[in-house]
């Protein structure tokens, strides 16, 4: 896609300029939340997990905004699925933030310990390079800085102890689960109902029984995917604001993006 592409009304829009303003808006909105929501050392895990996840959401949103070539049905849903995951996590965590944020951290530390042990098992029968020794040491030190590795349990299930669907139901966002998380999972996990539509094309030769042939055809970028990401960013902020009770201006980046794409004359305002 060119930076200057005609929109539906025939007017040229500068996509890169618009996404640049959008990412700046996302940065401002994140900064505004963090400024209005200072850490509380009674429950620092809440600030670190929720704040980190909010920042992660901003990173995902900006990553998508910066990459127009992946605004396609083949690629964008991989990012959008991760964005949906973050949203449901935040919504569920904020229902019981003190307890659940500890649960979230513990699961992550356990996974890190498990990964470390897999590496150690793999190298046990051969000579270890200095780089590997340094990497394993750094990983153990990272775990130890939070909890002694030998005391850390490993949870082989999922971190919340329940399904994502139940998390969404509990957090009041089961529609988001049904209509965003699940459909985009098909692409993210390369499931049949994604690849059959996007990576197979039906042969029309009757002697070939209308079999499906693999294809990796290029797809035209569609700005719809950026709008979806922006909408989920606004939704994330809305839930965060509501559950934390902080009051800041609501989602100007999304509103501005919609305005600019709807009426390019607004772009310079």
């Amino acid at each position, binding site marked *: 896609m060119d930076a200057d592409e005609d929109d539906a009304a025939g007017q040229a829009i500068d996509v890169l300029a618009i996404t640049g303003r959008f990412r700046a808006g996302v940065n401002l909105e994140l900064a505004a939340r963090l400024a209005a929501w200072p850490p509380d050392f009674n429950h620092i895990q809440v600030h670190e997990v929720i704040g980190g996840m909010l920042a992660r959401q901003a990173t995902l949103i900006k990553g998508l905004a910066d990459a127009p070539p992946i605004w396609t049905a083949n690629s964008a849903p991989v990012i959008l699925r991760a964005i949906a995951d973050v949203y449901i996590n935040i919504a569920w965590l904020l229902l019981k933030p003190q307890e659940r944020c500890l649960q979230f951290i513990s699961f992550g530390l356990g996974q890190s310990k498990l990964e470390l042990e897999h590496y150690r098992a793999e190298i046990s029968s051969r000579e270890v390079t200095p780089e590997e020794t340094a990497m394993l040491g750094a990983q153990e030190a990272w775990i130890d800085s939070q909890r002694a590795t030998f005391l850390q349990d490993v949870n082989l299930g999922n971190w919340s102890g329940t399904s994502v669907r139940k998390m969404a139901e509990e957090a009041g966002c089961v529609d988001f689960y049904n209509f965003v998380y699940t459909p985009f999972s098909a692409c993210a996990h390369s499931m049949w109902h994604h690849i059959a539509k996007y990576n197979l*094309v*039906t*042969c*029309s*030769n*009757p*002697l*070939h*029984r*209308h*079999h499906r*042939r693999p294809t990796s055809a290029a797809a035209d970028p569609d700005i719809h995917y950026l709008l979806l990401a922006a909408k989920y960013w606004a939704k994330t902020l809305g839930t965060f604001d509501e559950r934390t009770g902080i009051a800041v201006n609501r989602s100007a980046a999304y509103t501005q993006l919609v305005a600019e794409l709807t009426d390019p004359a607004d772009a310079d305002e």
Partner: protein
Amino acid sequence: MAARTPVLADHRKVGSRLIAPFNDMFGPTRDVSWINTMIPELLWIALIQDVHGSRRGVEIITAFTRDVRASSADRSTEIWAAAGKFTAIPGEALRAIVTGSPENYADELRDALRPLAAWYPSHPLNALLAGETLDASADELTYLKRTVATLFDRSCKAAIMTQATAVWLAFDADRLKVAPDLSLAQFPRIEEYPETELSLRIAASIRASLNQFFGDTAIMASESDWPAAFWNRGLEIAPCEDYDGR
């Protein structure tokens, strides 16, 4: 908040699976496909009917399969409709059945099967054309392609008459009997298809009967490799095509 409309409430939950009502009631089914299996098995019938017309086509096929049934006790109760069934008969024996027949159908049978033999060397009835120089012409391939394309619509007249012939062979072999009050009891009225309500009902019965014949009871299915071989051969003799004509 308004109560949510339940989804798939008619399905039964077993572990993490939602079992469809039909499967829940009748248990797992064995799929049988008109396109995957039945078209390759019954194409020879369709070709004979296309070349000689429905009425003469049925006469040729009836005479041929009666001769096959009469040729040995082992073959006397078989329904000789699916092409793959003929793999059980050695080529020499198959030729002898036709050439020794008091009925006069051999040339007509071979004429109709010639394009199939030319392009599909492993067709189970090819022994009937052994010794002939077969011309695998582009016209014949186009003809086969068009015929197969027509059969994809299982309810079109050609496909129905092909299936009716297969069901007729089950009657003729004394393997199918129907109650007098069923549509299928008025089987000959299929000739009216699709002009009369009765013929539409008979056609529906024919399709359902074939599903049964090619399904669990397998009295008509050959269980041979022929259907897969037919479609694999298609990939060898003609390129893939896109719907936009490329």
